[in-house]
């Protein structure tokens, strides 16, 4: 199954950039986070503004003058400020965080222009201004779900795409035992490491990276199975005694990763 909706963007340098579109899930998650942050921001502003207004009116009432128009002004400013906070939140972050808001950053997605370049104020403003139509009238969801490039109305008007951050391989340091290191130096001579394909190596590395979060029994089974298959692939007769299957996999990882020991 094609898990991601990928798009290929041509650049002026005739290099195609490939992106995975963000998808409804990531975008909804980002929106969920952003609206919580925004709600908090607005709540703080409301409390501040209301207490400011009350104190201001108390102060003005002590002076003698006609301040009956003041509450209307306060309300007007309040409404404008709400609009400014709502729009400004998205514009500010999308411009200064290269197309990301706090929610988008957590969901690992980003807004870009259709030619792959970062968005500017004009695009961010158009997206933010059309956001009420997309979000509060529930139109955005349908447009994202049904359009080929997952564009809500704001994206269509602004000419933007929302894409996933290219997730770099997690460079978690693998802890490797001493026994494995010893074996790794011998493996090159003993076996046909060249028989391993990059895909095989990738599987071993993925196992070693992720084993610590696996359940005990499945992990043991998987480790044994991988070790047995690898043993056949590299034409090793027996796994040296006293080594666990995990250590054997670590050794293969080291030996394969470090070509100097291979030649």
């Amino acid at each position, binding site marked *: 199954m094609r898990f991601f909706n990928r798009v290929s963007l041509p650049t002026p340098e*005739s290099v195609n950039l490939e992106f995975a579109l963000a998808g409804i899930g990531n975008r909804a998650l980002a929106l969920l986070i952003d609206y919580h942050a925004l709600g908090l921001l607005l709540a703080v502003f409301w409390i501040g503004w209301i207490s400011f207004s009350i104190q201001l009116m108390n102060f003005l009432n002590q002076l003698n003058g006609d301040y009956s128009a003041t509450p209307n002004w306060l309300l007007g400013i309040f409404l404008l400020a709400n609009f400014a906070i709502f729009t400004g939140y998205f514009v500010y972050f999308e411009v200064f965080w290269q197309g990301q808001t706090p929610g988008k950053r957590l969901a690992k997605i980003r807004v870009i222009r259709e030619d792959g370049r970062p968005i500017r104020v004009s695009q961010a403003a158009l997206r933010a201004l059309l956001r009420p139509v997309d979000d509060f009238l529930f139109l955005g969801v349908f447009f994202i779900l049904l359009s080929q490039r997952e564009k809500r109305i704001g994206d269509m008007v602004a000419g933007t795409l929302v894409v996933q951050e290219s997730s770099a391989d997690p460079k978690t340091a693998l802890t490797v035992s001493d026994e494995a290191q010893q074996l790794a130096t011998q493996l090159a001579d003993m076996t046909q490491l060249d028989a391993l394909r990059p*895909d095989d190596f990738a599987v071993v590395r993925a196992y070693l990276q992720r084993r610590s979060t696996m359940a005990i029994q499945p992990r043991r089974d998987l480790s044994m199975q991988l070790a047995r298959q690898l043993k056949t692939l590299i034409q090793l007769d027996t796994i040296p005694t006293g080594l666990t299957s995990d250590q054997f996999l670590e050794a293969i990882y080291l030996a394969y990763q470090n070509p100097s020991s291979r030649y």
Partner: protein
Amino acid sequence: MTFDSNPSDLTQPLSIGNVVNGGFRLYRSNLKPYLKVSAIGTLWALIPVLAIIPVVLFYVTTQRYYNLLGIIVPAWLLLVAYCSAQYMANSAAIARLAFGELINQPETVKAAYRYTSARKWSFLGMGALLSLLYFGVALGMYLIAAILIVIMFASIGGAEFLRSPASAAVINPGLAIFAGLVILAIILMFIVVFTWFSVRFCVAELPLSVEREATATKTIGRSWELTQKSVWRIFIILLVTFLVTLPIQFLVQVVATMAQGAIAAFYPQESSIVLALTYAFTYLLGLATGIIIMPLWQTIKAVIYYDLRSRREGLGLQLRDPEPLT
């Protein structure tokens, strides 16, 4: 020239958003077959409701033969059990189809349904067990709530408080706040505990749909074990999915309101016809929504299950030839 940093999409565990995406993409690319299976399943669930109509009409018109109920009620209960099992087999077939696609071993609808249909009584057993478990949880919660309320009641003055609640609250307004907080905490506790259990059991039907050795009890255990370290993540996944389905439900509400308006326009008088039509229409609309939404939850659960197995058991970490679907 094309840069592609991650050629095989599925070597890494999926993020929250991508689990939801995966569910939607599976549904979208199999819209017709999934909708068909969902419709068949929903029609099975409709049968007991339809069966009750002639019975009611019979008794309304005759007003006698009540001792026949001794046969009718058990027969109807059997029908409910059978139809529920059929419904579960159909919905599980969608989950199985989705999972098969995730591990690159797609099946025909027929084959998937044959597999889950053969286990329909296990699905029913699983459903019954889950109901019992939830009942047990609810019972436990009520006990805790009752104890808490008694303690709270005693601490704010017991019977004295009952005689003049207003005066007690006036003497010490802190008491009223305290009582309110306790009630709030109890409600919160109910929500949290039920959500937590729902998450732990949320993929219960998947093992039974794809793992050959699963049984009604084992499959619940599998769900429990797989979801162990991912409760929070799964909760967010389900929440985001729910949020995305809200607009669809909203659309249905709009249609329902419009239809009610139309019915009222055709039959201006408040009559039983209006009432019956409105009820029937709302019910049918609910069924239609169910048919549309159900496959989405099934595909989402399939992706959750796939991702959990990939995280907890290294599913997909294999050299070259894939294992056959068990």
